[in-house]
């Protein structure tokens, strides 16, 4: 039986995303992909599959999804209130949904980007080397309500329901930077002031970048003359003409002419993208050695997270139509029942 997700209610921030496109920088197309790569890795860890598989990224609106066939899903990233046929689902966990289940997801106000990964991944054809929407480039676009998102073959149908405690990335904090080719455009005093400034994440933010707010003067390079446009990468902290810093995201432009203070470590970028509006942010320069020490590729991150995941204890009374979906779905067996493989009895 074919397995799919059918989007019943969405919005402009509901997109398919994967790890982005590689090889198109020279053509002016930035990598794109999930705004919070760690959430994609967590979803992959919960489902026991590759983080390269495409998932649904959700920001800015409530989402409703109907399942076709029995589908394992993992819910990660910015927490959302989640129910399936009215029953509450734990966040940062994976769940088996029966055929025709109706999933409702509502943003909680913490963080920005929630993710729904499904076993087998969203199996749409690649366009320009990827499955994800690159909104800034006008490449693909939000998922339209009524769209059927086919799923690939489930690599691990015998999995059990698990949950994890995600790395905290919704409340801001100190973000680590690497100095770059343009750091020296700013005076030592200006860099010191930048690192001593309390910033807040503003509501102005999207996959292209996040605008910061601070009290006091804007930041300015030593030489105000126009710079030669140069290669820009996600994580760059760019100072716009009015002195306001922006942290550039996965859909940033590939070449830009604004001066840049430095580059946020890729492992810290999700904490900027996901920082709840108004969350405090500070910046600290680190050495390349320190930066590399805790960098993990998405696959490494998924393995580490998987090792920390714990069984999800579910009360069987929370699954009233369990018998029905076993019969209808035909894809689950008694051994797959979520609470049985946790090794725990229900209360």
């Amino acid at each position, binding site marked *: 039986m074919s397995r799919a997700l059918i989007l019943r209610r969405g919005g402009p921030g509901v997109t398919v995303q994967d790890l982005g496109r590689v090889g198109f920088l020279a053509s002016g197309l930035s990598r794109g992909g999930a705004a919070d790569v760690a959430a994609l890795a967590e979803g992959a860890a919960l489902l026991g599959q590759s983080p390269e598989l495409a998932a649904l990224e959700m920001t800015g609106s409530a989402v409703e999804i109907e399942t076709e066939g029995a589908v394992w899903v993992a819910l990660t990233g910015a927490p959302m209130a989640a129910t399936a046929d009215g029953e509450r689902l734990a966040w940062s966990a994976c769940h088996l949904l029966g055929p025709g289940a109706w999933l409702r997801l509502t943003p909680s106000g913490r963080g920005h980007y929630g993710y729904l990964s499904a076993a087998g991944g969203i199996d749409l054809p690649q366009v*320009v080397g990827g499955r994800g929407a690159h909104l800034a480039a006008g490449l693909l676009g939000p998922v339209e309500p009524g769209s059927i998102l086919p799923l690939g073959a489930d690599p691990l149908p015998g999995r059990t329901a698990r949950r994890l405690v995600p790395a905290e990335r919704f409340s801001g904090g100190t973000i680590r930077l690497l100095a770059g080719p343009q750091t020296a455009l700013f005076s030592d005093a200006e860099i010191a002031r930048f690192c001593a400034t309390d910033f807040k994440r503003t509501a102005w933010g999207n996959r292209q970048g996040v605008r910061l707010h601070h009290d006091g003067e804007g930041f300015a390079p030593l030489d105000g003359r126009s710079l030669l*446009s140069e290669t820009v990468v996600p994580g760059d902290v760019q100072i716009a003409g009015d002195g306001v810093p922006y942290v550039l995201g996965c859909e940033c432009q590939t070449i830009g002419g604004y001066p840049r203070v430095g580059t946020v470590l890729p492992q810290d970028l999700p904490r900027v993208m996901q920082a709840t509006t108004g969350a405090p942010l500070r910046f600290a320069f680190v050495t390349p050695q320190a930066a590399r020490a805790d960098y993990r590729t998405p696959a490494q991150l998924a393995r580490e997270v998987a090792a920390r995941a714990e069984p999800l204890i579910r009360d069987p009374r929370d699954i009233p139509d369990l018998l029905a979906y076993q019969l209808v779905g035909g894809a689950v067996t008694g051994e797959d029942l979520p609470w049985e493989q946790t090794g725990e009895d229900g209360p």
Partner: protein
Amino acid sequence: MTATPPQVFPRIGALGLDGILVQFAARLSEPANRAALAFRAAVDAAAFPGVAEISSSLAGTYLRFDPDAADPASLTDGLRALLDSRDWYRAPLPHNRRLWRIPTVLGGDHGPQLELAASLAGISTAEAVAEIAACRLRVMAIGFAPGQPYLGELPDRWNLPRQSDLKTRVPPGAVALAVRQCVLFPAESATGWYHIGQTAFRCFRPTGDPAFPLSPGDEIVFDPVAPKDLEALASAPAGGATAEPLA
């Protein structure tokens, strides 16, 4: 961090955890662009282990590596050795470049700021059309937006500063001019450049093969056509543009 940026070129520096940027100049010039294009091709050919992708900007070459598979110190050493192996500012341009002839309506309703740009350049509109149409402009870089070429350089009289506001809205395929360069817009945009013409050429075609017809190093000639021809060109392959190999 020093108070005065070092201005010795070419220079190599880290750009983020997984990138290295080689810069050939602080200001655009033909030799610096030539160096960036030629060095990018040489880095590509060198096939350093762990390199994920390579791109070039107006006067720089960028290399992104897989932090798990490449050692940035040895990669930097390899780039330094390659950099020192020749004078990249005089290097031949890479192979496989093409000359594009793109039918273009210059001026009039489709290029409403050509007259203003020409007067700022100190010549008549007719002279401006003739001079721009006679230029072979190099795709010096592709970037900012997908497929969007920076084309240069025009004669010095066209060194017009960008307009301070971004109120000019241009449609896809529009040609705009400033700072001795032209840009060919892939999509509707706001711009501070002078809107001088219109093509039916699309430099980003998401479902096309290739999706990005232009490559850095290609050359472009804007062949003037009448406004009435634009509609027919819109349904022609590549907006009526032709491409031939450059020696």
